[in-house]
């Protein structure tokens, strides 16, 4: 059976390669080139990070569009052009056909994602080669996750930050505390501490600023000179180096972060994290691990398209698959939207959506037409939206930028968790595809 499934998979892959869809790579390369030259002009974020962020988004989008189109047309063509007769007139079951097709589509997803990632990397290597080669990726030591932050000093603009911890301005600071550091067997001379913050509010046109970071012991004694780290309002994370000797000699360390100027505020959130990182792998290794996330996403999307193609015609399958792609990426918003339906005041909405950044969102939702705010039917719509967004796969889980751009190593556990998530949903959609195809008559008049 395996041989037959692999033969069908091989046929699917050959079809993809011979259809010259790879010409798409050239368009993609050009798109990356244009983006990389335009984006730095419109955003203050670090240029390389910005381009990688755009490249990941574009790789995901291009791969998704391409795979959806290819699968929907491939299955449709098999049925309409009756090539499927030549498979089912052989000792190949419908289960084998769907399984073989799925494996073929996974192979295509693999080739496509890594080819597009390769094109991106190749382009960026030519433009920013040396900087990237020198980069190192740091692995988070997960069991020493800093708790906090604890805010000291003046807290500004409380009304804006009612759902967060508070905005800290000049003269105030946020402190993260690390405990049990002496248990970690560090080999490197330097240890990196990465701080993820809710946001930076810069009250100037520059949009960028520096934060000061102090490393203190449990008695608040400063252990090394203050380091200043560059942050941008779009990228409020920072990473500072700490001497190994400081880490191994102290059971507890405090990391104090404060704005280095008067014109901006840091907005730490309750769920902000700080990671202790250690030197782990090369930039390239982590880059391709990040691309793996996209591969899992495109694979899941290919199974979704396969199941819709097994049941519907080409146009309907294309529509549903694009709908799934958009829904999967906007699921958290959809869930919020569902929860907000029926709420009658901004205050009620804000209490549901913590964080000052959601104020605008809450205001937008509050302007929804009356029929979405009131009425008995709202309960049904609300429950449907919340229910749907709870069971549909969340594509944000496959966002590689989340890890990669923060310089964090994507370890095997994270990869395995993502694979498990993909396999869980993939199996459900694949089972649906088998079921649809099992019952489907292959001849129509």
């Amino acid at each position, binding site marked *: 059976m395996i041989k037959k499934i*692999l033969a069908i998979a091989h046929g699917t892959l050959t079809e993809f390669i011979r259809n010259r869809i790879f010409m798409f790579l050239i368009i993609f390369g050009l798109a990356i080139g244009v983006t990389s030259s335009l984006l730095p002009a419109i955003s203050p974020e670090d240029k390389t990070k910005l381009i990688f962020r755009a490249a990941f988004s574009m790789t995901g989008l291009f791969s998704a569009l391409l795979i959806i189109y290819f699968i929907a047309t491939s299955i449709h063509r098999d049925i309409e052009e009756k090539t499927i007769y030549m498979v089912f007139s052989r*000792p190949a079951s419908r289960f084998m056909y769907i399984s073989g097709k799925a494996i073929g589509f996974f192979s295509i997803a693999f080739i496509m994602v890594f080819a597009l990632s390769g094109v991106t990397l190749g382009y960026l290597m030519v433009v920013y080669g040396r900087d990237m080669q020198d980069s190192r990726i740091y692995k988070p030591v997960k069991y020493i996750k800093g708790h906090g932050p604890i805010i000291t000093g003046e807290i500004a603009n409380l009304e804006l930050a009612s759902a967060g911890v508070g905005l800290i301005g000049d003269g105030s600071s946020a402190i993260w505390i690390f405990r049990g550091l002496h248990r970690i067997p560090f080999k490197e001379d330097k240890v990196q501490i990465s701080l993820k913050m809710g946001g930076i509010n810069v009250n100037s046109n520059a949009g960028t600023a520096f934060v000061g970071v102090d490393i203190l012991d449990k008695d608040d004694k400063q252990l090394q000179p203050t380091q200043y780290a560059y942050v941008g309002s779009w990228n409020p994370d920072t990473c500072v180096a700490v001497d190994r000797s400081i880490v191994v000699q102290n059971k507890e360390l405090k990391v104090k972060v404060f704005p280095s100027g008067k014109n901006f505020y840091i907005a730490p959130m309750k769920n902000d994290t700080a990671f202790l990182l250690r030197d782990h792998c090369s930039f390239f290794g982590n880059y391709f691990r990040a691309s793996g996330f996209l591969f899992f996403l495109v694979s899941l999307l290919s199974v979704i398209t396969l199941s819709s193609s097994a049941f519907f015609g080409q146009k309907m399958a294309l529509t549903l698959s694009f709908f799934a792609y958009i829904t999967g990426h906007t699921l958290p918003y959809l869930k919020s939207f569902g929860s907000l339906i029926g709420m009658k005041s901004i205050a009620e909405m804000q209490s549901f959506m913590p964080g000052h950044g959601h104020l605008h969102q809450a205001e937008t939702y509050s302007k929804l037409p009356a029929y979405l705010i009131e009425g008995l039917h709202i309960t049904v719509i609300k429950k449907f939206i919340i229910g749907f967004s709870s069971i549909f796969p969340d594509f944000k889980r496959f966002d590689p930028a989340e890890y990669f751009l923060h310089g964090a190593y994507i370890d095997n556990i994270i990869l395995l968790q993502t694979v498990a998530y993909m396999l869980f949903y993939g199996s459900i959609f694949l089972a649906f595809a088998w079921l649809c195809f099992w019952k489907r008559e292959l*001849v129509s008049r």
Partner: protein
Amino acid sequence: MAAQKHVVEINNLTKVYRQLFSSREVKAVDNLSFYIRRGEVCGFLGPNGAGKTTTIMLLLGFLKPTSGTISVLGQKPSHVGVKERIGFLPEESYFYKFFNADEILDYYGSLFNMEPKVKRQRINELIEMVGLKEARRRRIREYSKGMQRRIGIAQALINDPEFIILDEPTSGLDPIGTQEVKDLIIYLRRSGKTILMSSHLLADVQGVCDRIILLHQGRLIVEGPTREILSKKGCIRFEVQDDGENTQKQIRNFAEQNGIKITSMGEATITLEEFFVKSIKNVGNNNIQ
């Protein structure tokens, strides 16, 4: 057992196509019953829309009968295992056109779990048999209709099947190709294969089929041995050597004297197809000389 004697047994088969969300129904096959004996070549005839293709689709398990039963090689047509013993040439070339001849045969061979060595040998034999040796590396989308038909025949035989379904096997072929296919069918019958041959070209069917099944509007109209069905009751046909004008006169006189009624008499002709094949073969032989 009947299943051993008959390769195909169809009893009271009916297939009705229904459209989703519509009350419209089309009865493609209507209470059809027939059988195909092991080792015979059975011609499956009928005008367009007679239900031939639907019956073939039912035989291959692509469709489920609305009512009635089908047995193919003693099994239900949907049984995957039974396909191991069936070869199928569809009406048109439903192949992946991005493959070349070698690859398509390899692909279909893999679906039979053939050993790579056996498969390779079989592919070489079949490509040679259908005369595509020179074109074996060309993509199928570049093939002419006749070449596509040839590769279709090759793929139908890749598993050395017991029962072969040929849907319009000679369509798109030139007379020489047609003759070769007919010769091949005769050869396959001699090798013990059972063949169901559907065709619009009645001369092709007549030349090779042992038995004929004629459908119209989904119903069985006529079924029986070809010779029996086509024989003109009460008539005898014989050919004599023509030695000039006297021959006809002598035969007429002999008939009159003995009370034999001649219904037609004239110059013996060959079919245009026979003439074409003979002429092309002669040109070929002269060129070789």
